[in-house]
């Protein structure tokens, strides 16, 4: 690897880099701590809006939440990307090969969370797993967990609902992936996988150079990822938070309580059915979701809606159709949908 040979001056450069990372971490922390007080001062004292007024409340919600979410997003995406540069999907596949169902589903769901993976790679990953002998149900556990428990979703839930809800979301999200993958595996649906998947021959192992990346490259990679993700989702985020702010400031407190509160058993299935065709990144949905929760929609209903939006999306289904026959695709959506439904009801009972 001629590129990574240490050159004179590299040591000093890497010390500067660590310094930069530590300085950035400190600036981040200060920003996060003063965020609330800064906007209290700007919105209520400098601009002079009344904290009790609807406009004041909505404007404060908007600027405070935007700052908080952008900080959380960039900080955690950076850390997650740097950590993930130690894991590759090839390594994950090697770990899952030859696992029994059950324990294999648990491992697959866990690895689905930590493996760097973009849903645009769902098809090559599926073929690669199945062709290498990873059982179908275990492969599906991986593919369900990966988008559902993604870092952007978890960070936003953490920022909006606090850590208890975030932990419950992660636990229930993993459970859906484990149980749905296990059930799909037990159903023996291999005949509904497009035959070419089993005919694919693998030509030896891949040597993945990124596993011995120097720290400089990992940090650069992390920063790059922050810029890419934030650059991609900020418009959705702003629209989502603005909608949230409007609902927060103007909608009556119990607007949705009567028809979407915990008392209405139909609210969860409706939320899931609305969520499946709706496609949006977690970043766009969550601010809206928080506003809905504020106005009386039960939390389980809201989270079921979110899970349906991120885990079952039409574009991903269209991709997976290349490898799964329609019957298997329908069963997949059905089983995962029922799992999300159950989580919605459970959440409504627990919280």
């Amino acid at each position: 690897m001629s590129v990574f040979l240490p050159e004179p001056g590299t040591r000093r450069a890497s010390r500067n880099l660590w310094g930069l990372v530590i300085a950035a971490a400190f600036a981040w922390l200060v920003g996060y701590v003063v965020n609330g007080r800064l906007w209290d001062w700007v919105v209520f004292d400098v601009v002079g809006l009344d904290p009790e007024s609807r406009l004041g409340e909505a404007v404060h919600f908007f600027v405070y939440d935007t700052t908080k979410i952008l900080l959380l997003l960039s900080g955690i995406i950076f850390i997650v990307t740097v950590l993930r540069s130690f894991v590759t999907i090839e390594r994950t596949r090697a770990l899952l090969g030859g696992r029994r169902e059950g324990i294999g589903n648990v491992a697959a769901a866990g690895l689905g969370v930590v493996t760097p993976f973009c849903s645009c790679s769902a098809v090559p990953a599926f073929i690669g797993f199945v062709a290498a002998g990873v059982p179908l149900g275990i492969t599906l556990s991986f593919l369900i967990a990966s988008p559902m428990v993604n870092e952007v979703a978890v960070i936003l839930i953490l920022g909006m609902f606090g850590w208890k809800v975030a932990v419950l979301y992660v636990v229930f999200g993993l459970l859906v992936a484990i149980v749905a993958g296990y059930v799909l595996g037990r159903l023996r649906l291999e005949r509904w996988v497009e035959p070419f998947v089993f005919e694919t021959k693998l030509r030896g192992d891949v040597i993945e150079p990124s596993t011995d990346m120097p720290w400089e490259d990992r940090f650069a990679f992390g920063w790059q990822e922050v810029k890419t993700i934030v650059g991609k989702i900020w418009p959705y985020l702003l629209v989502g938070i603005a909608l949230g702010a409007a609902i927060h400031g103007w909608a009556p407190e119990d607007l949705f309580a009567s028809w979407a509160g915990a008392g209405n058993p139909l609210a969860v299935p409706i939320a899931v059915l609305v969520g499946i065709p709706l496609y949006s990144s977690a970043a766009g949905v969550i601010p809206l979701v928080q506003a809905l929760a504020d106005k009386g929609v039960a939390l389980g209903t809201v989270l079921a809606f979110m899970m349906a939006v991120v885990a079952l999306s039409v574009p991903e289904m269209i991709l997976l159709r290349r490898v799964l026959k329609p019957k298997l695709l329908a069963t997949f959506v059905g089983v995962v949908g029922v799992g999300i439904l159950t989580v919605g009801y459970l959440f409504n009972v627990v919280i």
Partner: protein
Amino acid sequence: MKIEVLGTGCKNCNALEAATSEALQQLGLDVPIDKVTDYGEIVAYGVMSTPALAIDGEIKTTGRVPSVSELTGLLSGATS
């Protein structure tokens, strides 16, 4: 030298192709870039996260778009 970009036409695959051709240009190399878009072919290489870059049939990077400078390093390493 044989250069292949593996990917099914996602945004990053096009970015990788552009970065590779820029790296080739910087090196003054006139080598065509082959695009491998068939899922079976891609997976047969052992690649599960696209886009990937193969030089002379050997996978060099997967799942990310390397910088042009990293690519020139990889490409010049392959010619020497």
